[in-house]
């Protein structure tokens, strides 16, 4: 069975600084997707960034980038130039094509002014 582990329950960063959230996963599959979702207090999950496992190039979306290490089954999220609006729960998630999305336990990120 696939599992997703986020080992940092809480993180904090100063505004404008850079922070990295860690995620590891376990699977025997070779084709899959990885995601980072953000959940603000409004409860709605918002997609931050996604990575297809067959792509070696790390995904980037503006201030958000990932470090995808397929052999190590690691998928960390880097947030550059942190903003107050980045304060939220962040969830790493794994999905096989056509399958279910499996979430990690989450990391609560606080951006301090």
């Amino acid at each position: 069975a696939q599992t997703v582990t986020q080992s940092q329950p809480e993180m904090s960063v100063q505004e404008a600084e850079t922070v990295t959230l860690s995620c590891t996963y376990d699977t025997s599959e070779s084709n899959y997707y990885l995601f980072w979702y953000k959940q603000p207090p409004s409860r709605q999950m918002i997609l931050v960034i996604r990575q297809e496992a067959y792509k070696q190039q790390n995904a980037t979306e503006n201030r958000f980038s990932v470090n995808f290490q397929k052999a190590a089954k690691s998928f960390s999220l880097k947030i550059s130039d942190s903003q107050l609006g980045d304060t939220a729960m962040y969830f790493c998630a794994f999905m096989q094509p056509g399958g279910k999305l499996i979430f990690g336990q989450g990391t609560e990120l606080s951006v301090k002014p």
Partner: protein
Amino acid sequence: GAGVSQTPSNKVTEKGKYVELRCDPISGHTALYWYRQSLGQGPEFLIYFQGTGAADDSGLPNDRFFAVRPEGSVSTLKIQRTERGDSAVYLCASRPGGSITGELFFGEGSRLTVL
């Protein structure tokens, strides 16, 4: 609206009562998912529909939980004989059936409180 809609937003009920939670997915999305999120935890998979049929219901915790999607659009999650441990936020998500990106689009959830 254009997003996933869930009703009610909040539901308070008494132990032993029956509850229905509704999800209206994005128009045209054939895949629909239900998740349960307890306080401070990540969402836990319950069930996944492809069209009208349940493609994977391995996450339903017991036979008190049941979900339907009779016309392949709106889905209802039904909980019988509610227990205090059922208190959680129930999230619904949808995606296009032929999506190659895998992205799920989530609603804002229904917060269930069982007294």
